[in-house]
């Protein structure tokens, strides 16, 4: 079966590059019909609504200014603060696409941040070594999760729960229960640096996103991931190495978490094993679900997850700048999850549709 046949059978798997095939310019009509867009329009509309609200009622929200070669303003701040959740959401999206979930990302962030801070503060290793050891440790955590889920077939919630429960304990043991502070201009660049006039975190996140998108469009990896999540047995019979797919997806998710952990740690120049990445796994799952990735697996929309993470951060920033008490953030998030779930529920949409027919 050629790829063309396949994409006709399963239009939602049509890669974006297909839209450019017939003519050199972007075929707008075809693009608007791709699931990437149809799934993206709802979170984008929500984001637009929140931004419109701010445009009308929050003075100075869209104000940007250049200071010391770096752009400042609420919008830049939102992008910068959303970066860790965006990274987590990218990894989480792939995991959810295989029908799993990774609860350990918050704990992995704490581990990676603690190792980074310890190596700089206590051992004084060069930055490249520190970053590679931190990321290596998170990769190891991911390989462990992947081994449990992929090869031992442990249910993902339980498998990653193990590391979620003990991971923060491991991070606490590493740091001796203390907050490790450090000074290292080079390492701080990861979380606080400026690149092309924007915070470096934005470049980093966009880099990971572009790499993933390229990987998804140019190789069959995306197809394998969706196939594994859609119907594991069928994919196995069609020759997809579903075990390996799961193994690698969890490894990648933890790698993203390790990167996010480094960002969070270097941003505040301290490793707080207790609070780094606390509850962020839930934000990451939420971002992916808002972006149109179904928890049952089989579909994923990387761009949607980014928009989901941005929506969450924009809401949080709006609540902060409007002077509403911070504690409402959780309530708003709860309402958001229920709304998104209701919109995705066939039964709910069916009942609305039937009512409007009468």
């Amino acid at each position: 079966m050629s790829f063309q046949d396949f994409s006709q059978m399963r239009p939602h798997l049509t890669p974006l590059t297909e839209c450019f095939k017939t003519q050199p310019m972007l075929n707008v009509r075809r693009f608007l019909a791709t699931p990437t867009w149809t799934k993206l329009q709802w979170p984008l509309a929500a984001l637009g609504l929140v931004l419109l609200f701010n445009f009308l009622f929050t003075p100075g929200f869209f104000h940007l200014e250049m200071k010391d070669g770096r752009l400042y303003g609420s919008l830049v701040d939102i992008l910068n603060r959303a970066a860790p959740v965006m990274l987590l959401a990218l990894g989480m999206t792939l995991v959810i696409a295989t029908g799993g979930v990774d609860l350990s990302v918050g704990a992995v962030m704490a581990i990676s941040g603690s190792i980074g801070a310890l190596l700089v503060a206590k051992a004084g290793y060069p930055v490249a070594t520190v970053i590679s050891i931190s990321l290596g440790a998170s990769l190891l955590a991911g390989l462990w999760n992947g081994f449990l889920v992929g090869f031992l077939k442990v249910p993902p919630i339980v498998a990653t729960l193990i590391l979620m429960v003990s991971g923060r304990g491991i991070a606490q043991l590493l740091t001796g229960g203390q907050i490790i502070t450090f000074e290292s201009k080079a390492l701080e660049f990861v979380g606080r640096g400026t690149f092309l006039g924007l915070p470096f975190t934005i470049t980093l996140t966009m880099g990971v996103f572009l790499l993933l998108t390229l990987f998804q469009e140019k190789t069959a990896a995306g197809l394998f991931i969706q196939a594994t999540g859609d119907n594991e047995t069928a994919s196995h019979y069609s020759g997809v190495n579903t075990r390996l797919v799961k193994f690698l997806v969890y490894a990648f998710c933890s790698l993203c978490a390790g990167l996010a952990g480094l960002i969070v740690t270097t941003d505040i120049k301290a490793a707080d094993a207790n609070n780094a990445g606390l509850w962020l796994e839930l934000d990451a799952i939420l971002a992916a679900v808002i972006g149109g990735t179904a928890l049952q697996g089989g579909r994923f929309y990387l761009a949607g997850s980014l928009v989901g993470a941005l929506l969450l951060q924009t809401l949080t920033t709006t609540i902060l700048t409007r002077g509403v008490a911070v504690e409402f953030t959780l309530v708003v998030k709860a309402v958001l999850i229920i709304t998104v779930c209701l919109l995705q529920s066939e039964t709910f949409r069916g009942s609305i549709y039937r009512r409007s027919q009468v």
Partner: protein
Amino acid sequence: MNLRLIKRNIPFMATAIVCLLLYLAAGFQYPGFSSLRVFINFFSDNAVLGIAAIGMTFVILSGGIDLSVGGVVGLISVVMALGIEKSHVPALAVIPLVLLLGLGFGAAMGCLIHFYAMPAFLVTLAGMFLARGLAFVLKLEAIPITRDLEPLVSKASVPLGEVLEIPATALVFLITLAMAIAVAHFTRFGRNIYALGGNEQSAILMGLPVARTRIGVYALSGLCSALAGVVYAFYTFSGNPNAATGLELDAIAAVVIGGTVLSGGVGYLAGTLLGVLIFGIIQTAITFQGTLSSWWTRIVIGLLLLFFILLQKLLQAKKFKPLNMHTTRHETLS
């Protein structure tokens, strides 16, 4: 409960053996560990976790999951503290009201999960955010309860000889456990839960009331969480919006260590009790040891979780031979 040595019972037996071994090892290591006082403290110190884990057991038996447990405990403790301190409602009147609140909260989540086929994971996650958020909106810091509660708690404890007593928190835990075992094994509702978790399709075809059972399970879990919130107030004499952060995960861990299978349909409440006791034994042993960081509790729990999951996998793997390319359909059926 049927305790023959059949495969289904092996995880439960293993938990019992591990629990006993841990207790004996700690008892030999530290003098005073095996005293009755320490034993009673296992129940009173872990009453919040235990009661929440009882509710969680029902949810997991039905094939679902409830992440809202910790949030509800925080919310209920705050509502209770505000009711007693600010509104001057007597404690005995507040308790039924907050229990009803928890029941309604759980039932609402159950309705969303059942009628709109929404994933339990997400709905209860929203429930957690909502409960925790509302608790913070009501009050940002802990509220001490100075009126009314203390005489109630001391009256409710049972004296045991001259110096010892069973505190009210432990008593509530044990009574809840007894009632939960009765519900699970001697009522129609309990059998329906096992059937629903075992195979939903069969449950529907058998004509079991799936809707009532599933909503009932989440309502029951909400009720248990609310009761855990009340016990939290009993235990600390305060309401705290930060109470029981991460309790849901400890509860899931206790349930899984207790031998309940996460896919539903198999497990015992007695196993959950053992799981909670293992939590208590490890924590107390680390306190007795004195030099180990309390973070070792989390790591040991993680290791135990791993051990029991691998054990369950091992037992399952022998039961269902995985299909592979080389076995034909006929071979697998025979």
